[in-house]
């Protein structure tokens, strides 16, 4: 997967900020990293604050990656392990640790996946959705 050109990343971020609230923008698949001065020549953009209940795992940028899981699900752990092995920069959240308002925010962010019930749910760039520990698909998308 090739990284989006800096200009495209900035536009995507701006679009996300316009459409969504700041915290939610991140979860909905907008980049969480503020573009550095040398990245593109677009207007300065404030990085949306990452809610404290979202965990950031630093790694290599393969687009914006959000993993939604449950603490009770071993497949979610396997997915985290795989993302770790692939050294992907990603954000994760365990839905069963959230209160109602936080859960509602995440549910909005995973709307792109339709009415999913199973976890893990991986949302890539706010548009691609992989439900379940589908190793081959995850490797293809992020490897």
């Amino acid at each position: 997967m090739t990284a989006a050109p800096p200009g495209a990343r900035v536009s995507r971020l701006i679009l996300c900020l316009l459409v969504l609230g700041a915290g939610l923008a991140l979860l909905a698949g907008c980049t969480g990293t503020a573009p550095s001065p040398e990245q593109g020549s677009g207007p300065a953009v404030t990085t949306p604050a990452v809610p404290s209940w979202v965990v950031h795992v630093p790694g290599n940028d393969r687009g914006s990656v959000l993993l939604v899981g449950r603490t009770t699900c071993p497949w979610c752990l396997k997915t985290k392990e795989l993302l770790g092995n692939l050294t992907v920069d990603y954000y994760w959240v365990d839905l069963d640790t959230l209160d109602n308002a936080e859960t509602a925010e995440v549910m909005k962010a995973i709307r792109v996946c339709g009415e999913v019930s199973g976890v893990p749910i991986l949302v890539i760039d706010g548009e691609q959705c992989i439900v379940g520990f589908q190793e081959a698909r995850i490797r293809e998308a992020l490897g």
Partner: protein
Amino acid sequence: MTGVPEVTETEIPALHDRLDREAEEGGYHLNPDEEFVRGLVRGLLVNTKRYGYMSCPCRLAAGRKEEDLDIICPCDYRDPDLEEYGACYCALYVSDDVLAGKKKTGSIPERRPPPGARVSAVTPAAGAAAPFALTYPVWRCRVCGYLCARDEPPGVCPVCKAKKDRFERFL
């Protein structure tokens, strides 16, 4: 944020042994990967403490029993998934072939329909018209398909151990 209920080290083997015994009695099998199953059993215990019922560890729960009835373990989708993929969605249960190493399984697609398309778990399915007069209503276990003719469904399914509220009126 909310906390995750504590699970003690003695609770996990106790539930594991019960599930294993009940599975074998009913002709089902737990996944032989003990470490993986341990994680799922822990998840079932956490969900029981959190919701008051054993909601599926790998699915989003509404936290309201009426809405989650179909995903109380063993869920309504276990048997068709065992048949088609050799494992349930979480892979807590596996088929004979998977247990014998004749078939491999992994993460499988989610069979649970979206909320609007789910058969109501609250109201029992309207019984089909019987072609003859019945002395007793016939009840069907939604988990394993066990049928019985009696005034009320049994408290626990004798085959898969699903509770009374998982039965629907069949005839």
